[in-house]
């Protein structure tokens, strides 16, 4: 599964890790993350991410 990078702060979303703080379990593809999820580092919206 593809990793996605936050264009605002550089945080990388890795599906293998998920985002436990944001309630995203490991193994979740970026496309399957809810639209209201925000970057755990800077608070950017999902739209601000690009495929790495």
């Amino acid at each position: 599964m593809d990793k996605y990078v936050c264009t605002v702060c550089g945080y990388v979303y890795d599906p293998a890790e998920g985002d436990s703080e944001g309630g995203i379990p490991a193994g979740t593809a970026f496309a399957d993350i809810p639209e209201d999820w925000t970057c755990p580092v800077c608070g950017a919206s999902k739209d601000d991410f690009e495929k790495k």
Partner: protein
Amino acid sequence: MRPVEIAPGIYNVGVRDWNIRDFHGYSTYLGTTYNAFLIIDEKITLIDTVKSDFTDEMMANISRVIDPKKIDVIISNHTEMDHSGGLPHLMSVIGPDKPILCSKMGAKNLAAHFGNDLKYQPVADGEAINIGKRNLKFIETRMLHWPDSMFTYAVEDKILFSSDAFGQHYAGSETFDDEVGELIMPHAKKYYANILTLFSDLIQKLLKSVAESGLEIKTICPDHGIIWRKDPGAIISAYNDWSLQKTDQKALVLYDSMWHSTEIMADEIVSGLLATGVKAIPMQARKWHRSDVMTEMLDAKALIVGSPTLNNNIFPALMDVMTYIKGLKPSNRIAASFGSYGWSGEAANLLATELENMKFKVVEPALRVKYIPDTASRDLCFEFGKKMGEHIKAS
């Protein structure tokens, strides 16, 4: 520093740090200030605090204007500890139940610094509060330069409290731009180069959205340095140029030397650049502070970097400043490398790879000279400088 009334009922109760010379790796030859702003209205409001070492001085300043216990609202534009360090003590004096208004990320970050017991109250971008005669509006400036950063705009006074934007590390005796004049701009430039270059695209977006919103700005109060009351347009216009990464026909020749051979090469390259009418700034890595090198980099079109080979590698002093420049991500630049060597001579080629990793466009092959440059080698270096000058003029 005693409180200074910067507008009727609005005071700078911050402090001057005359003696700081190194601000997390940024050379502050003239110290800095931590500005904090007290607004006397129906609800007494304090915008930001100071570095923890100066908390007592800030409290004394507030006391000269009003009993600190009367403060009703705290606004935290930025969590970084030179602006939030005084918060725990302040809250213990004024009462931990007083609201601390901040951005959503500010609430998260302040809690991470100072625990969950304080009353963080997140505000949204564009939200405003009324404190009596005044309305204060919040503008989210995420990643300028931390996730939590925001501005506070005093609507009736037309004052922008801009946190770390538009600041300067400068602790002169003056308070306002009209008192210090043109001399302040080099400090503002150094501040932008070293703190904000990385966020240039976001600054462009912010400046456009502020212009479109028609926000009238009479005064800009940054958290460091002097207050822009005479000509706030000057610093906004400078930020526009810097964030567009506008460069001059100028090359930075950054080098180091063991036995003067790479220094001779640098000197010839500078002469070649000058012969084409391009400005050239030679800087020896161990003689200049990295933050001054970055200031020159801000408007240089080309970075030409030279190193002797030490233990099959690049001189460490150069990697210090190269790592620093890399993190600040200046874009749309050209580059080349050079260096003298004794036996294998890897440094110049390794530098070229580093420049490519920094997204600079390497426009000439690395120039290498064995041992001491003779007349023919000197001429090669001079020609190399001329070629770089032509590249700069053509780009």
